C-alpha cells in the first residue's frame, strides 16, 4: 500500500490534529472554523459526525453534539459538508459504529466508507469499535484506500495491544488518560507510559484526551508523541461563541466583548498548540544511536 495522505501528514514533524463536531452550531460555521484551524497549522482534521449516544465523550463534546443534531446534522449533510471543505489537509471522520452500519441500502459499513471516500475523507476513528469487531470496517477501508485509526487506552497492554497494532493504519490514537474526552489543566503521567509501550511500533502516535494548552502540547511531543489531538479545548471556543450569540467581529466590537471572532480565536488557539508541539520536538532528547 502506498503511504496514505494521513501518513504523509506526519512526515514533516509533529502533527497537530484538531477535532470539531460537524454542524456545531451549523454547517457554514463548521466550514469556517475548519478553515481557520488549517490556517492555524492543522496537519489533519478530525471531524465528528454526531451520534445520539456518544458514550466516549465528555460533557463539552456531548453538548456540541446536541447543538449539531438539533441543527439538523445527518450523515448525508456531513458528507456534503466535507465535500465542500476545500482544504489541503487530510480529514478523519470520527463517529460511532451504528451510523456507519446503518448508512445506505446495503448491510454493513461498505456504503458508508464508499461515500466517505467519494467526498475525500481519508480515514476513520470509531470510539465504540474495538479491534475485535472491526473486521468488516477494516475490509471496507482497505477496499477504498482509507485509514482506520484505533485508540489505545492506558489499560491496553500485551496481546490486546498487539492485536490492535496489527490492524491500525494512519496513526494510533493514544488516549492520554482513562475516561472520556474533555479539556484538562494537567498532563497525565499515563501518557509517557503509553508512549513507552508503543515505542517498538513504527506507526505515528498521536496523543489525545485532555490537551488544552501550549505547555501540554510541548510536554507530550517532548515525550515522544508524533502528534497531538485537541478537541474539547477547541469545542469550548465554539460553545462560547454560541452562547455569546455573536459570531462576527462587528457584533463583538459593538457589544464591547472580545474583539475576536470564533474563527479567529480558533485560529490563534491552533497556532498556540502547534507552536507548543514544535517546541516539544526541539526539546526532545535525541535518541541515542548505539
Amino acid at each position, binding site marked *: 500500500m502506498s503511504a496514505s495522505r494521513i501518513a504523509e501528514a506526519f512526515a514533516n514533524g509533529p502533527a497537530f490534529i484538531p477535532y470539531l463536531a460537524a454542524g456545531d452550531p451549523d454547517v457554514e460555521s463548521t466550514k469556517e472554523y475548519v478553515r481557520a484551524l488549517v490556517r492555524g497549522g492543522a496537519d489533519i482534521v478530525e471531524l465528528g459526525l454526531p451520534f445520539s449516544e456518544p*458514550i*466516549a465523550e*465528555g460533557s463539552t463534546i456531548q453538548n456540541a453534539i446536541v447543538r449539531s443534531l438539533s441543527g439538523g446534522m445527518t450523515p448525508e449533510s456531513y458528507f456534503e459538508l466535507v465535500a465542500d471543505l476545500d482544504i489541503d489537509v487530510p480529514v478523519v471522520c470520527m463517529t460511532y459504529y451504528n*451510523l456507519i452500519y446503518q448508512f445506505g441500502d446495503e448491510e454493513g459499513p461498505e456504503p458508508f466508507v464508499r461515500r466517505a471516500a467519494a467526498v475525500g475523507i481519508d480515514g476513520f476513528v470509531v470510539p*465504540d469499535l474495538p479491534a475485535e469487531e472491526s473486521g468488516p470496517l477494516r475490509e471496507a477501508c482497505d477496499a477504498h484506500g482509507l485509514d482506520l485509526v*484505533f485508540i*489505545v*487506552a492506558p*489499560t491496553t497492554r500485551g496481546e490486546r495491544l498487539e492485536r490492535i497494532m496489527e490492524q491500525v493504519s494512519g496513526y494510533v490514537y493514544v488516549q492520554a488518560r482513562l*475516561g472520556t474526552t474533555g479539556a484538562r489543566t494537567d498532563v497525565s503521567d499515563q501518557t509517557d507510559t503509553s508512549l513507552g509501550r508503543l515505542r517498538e511500533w513504527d506507526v505515528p502516535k498521536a496523543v489525545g484526551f485532555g490537551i488544552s494548552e501550549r505547555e501540554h502540547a510541548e510536554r507530550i511531543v517532548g515525550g515522544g508523541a508524533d502528534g497531538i489531538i485537541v478537541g474539547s479545548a477547541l469545542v469550548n471556543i465554539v460553545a462560547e461563541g454560541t452562547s455569546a450569540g455573536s459570531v462576527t467581529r462587528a457584533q463583538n466590537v459593538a457589544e464591547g466583548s472580545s474583539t475576536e471572532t470564533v474563527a479567529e480565536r480558533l485560529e490563534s488557539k491552533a497556532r498556540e498548540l502547534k507552536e507548543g508541539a514544535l517546541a516539544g520536538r526541539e526539546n526532545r532528547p535525541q535518541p541515542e544511536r548505539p
Partner: protein
Amino acid sequence: MSTDTNTKFGRYGGQYVPEALMPAIEELEEAYQRYVLGNEAGFMDDFRERLRDFGGRPTPLQRAEQLSERYDSEIYLKREDLLHGGAHKLNNALGQVLLAKYMGKERIIAETGAGQHGTATAMACAHLGMDCEIYMGERDINRQRPNVFRMRLNGAEVNPVTTGRGTLKEAISETMRDWATSVEDTHYVIGSVVGPHPFPRMVRDFQSVIGEEAREQIEEKARRLPDSVLACAGGGSNTMGAFHEFVPQEGVGLYAVEAGGSSLEVDEEGGVAPNSASLSTGSEGVLHGARTKLLQDRDGQIMESHSVSSGLDYAGVGPELAHLVDEGRVVPVNVDDDGALEAFHRLSQLEGVIPALETAHAFAYLENEHENLGDCVIVNVSGRGDKDLESVIEETAEREIDIAPDMDVFSGGGL
C-alpha cells in the same frame, strides 16, 4: 479470549465499547468463566445461599385463582415481586456485586431506569460492603422518588443524568462514561441482558433461576410443562430469566411483552418513538456495546423511547432475545399504556398482588390473548408496584379506567 462464536447470539451481541473498557471486559469474561461457569472458590454456592437468605429465594409459583377462573385456564404467577427489593433485579445485582467482590473490585456503579436495578444494586452493595454510585435520568428520578430514597438509605450515591430526555438510555451512556474513567477498581453492574459480551450471557445466567424454579414448581403443581410463559421485556432480563430454562422445550410458547406506549407509530422528525417496542418494531443496530434490535431513525440515531413504565422505557433490547425472535422461538408482542394501567388495576383487585407497571404489561397481554395461550400459562411477576403508586395516581386520573378505584380518600393530593 473472546471469539466470535461466544460473544454473539447469531448476528447479535458482540462488544462495541471504547478500547478503554475492553481490558475490563476481558477480565470480567475471565471471572465469569471461572466463578460463574466454573464455580471457582464456591462462588455459585455462595451466590445461591445469599439469594436464598438475603434475597428470599425460592419465590413461589402461585396459582392465580381469580384469573384462572376469569380465563378458564390455569394461570400461574411466578412471584419475583417477593424478592428482596421488590423485583427480579436482585438476582442479577447480587450476582454481579458478589462477582466484583471476588474479582477484588472496590467500587460499584450502575445505571437505573425504574430505580429497581438501582435499589437492588444499592442493597447488594450494602449487604456486601461495597461503595456504590447509581446513575439515573432526572426524569426517572422524578417518576420514581421512593426508589431514589431507598438507594440513598442503603448508602449509595445517586447521580442525576440530565442529558437527553433523562431516562434509562442516557443513564446507561453516562455510567459507561464513568466506567471508562474508573475501570481499574470499579465494576459496572449493568441492569439487564444488554451491553457488551459477557453481560447479556452473565445476566441471563444470574436471572435464569427464575425459570429453573418455575419449571420445577409447575412440574410439581401441574405435573406438566406450561403451554406459554409470559414476561414483560424492557432490556429483557426478567424475560430471559423466565424463558431460558424453557427455550429447549419446543412446546412451550414464549411471549416477550413490550411496552407499546401510546402508539407504535414513530415520529422520525422528532426522533421520538412513543413506545419501547424494539423487538416488535425495531431494526438491527449497535447500541451500548451490542448489536441488537433498536428504535432508531433511518440514519441510525437512537430514538427517545416512551412507556408509562420507566423500567421498559428503553430503545434497545438484549441481543439474545433479538436472536430468539429472529429464530421464531420467542414471540414479540406488545400492549399499550392504557392496557397496562388497566391490567395493573385488575391484578391488584382480583388477586391482591399489586404489580409493577412493567409487569402489568404481561397481564394486559394475557387479558387480550388468553384464548390463544393454551391451558396452562405462567406469567412472570417481575416486580411489585409500590414504586409506581405516584405514577399510577397521575396516569389513572388522565384516563377513564372503569375498574380503577375512586381516589376520594386522597382528596388532599398525591401521596
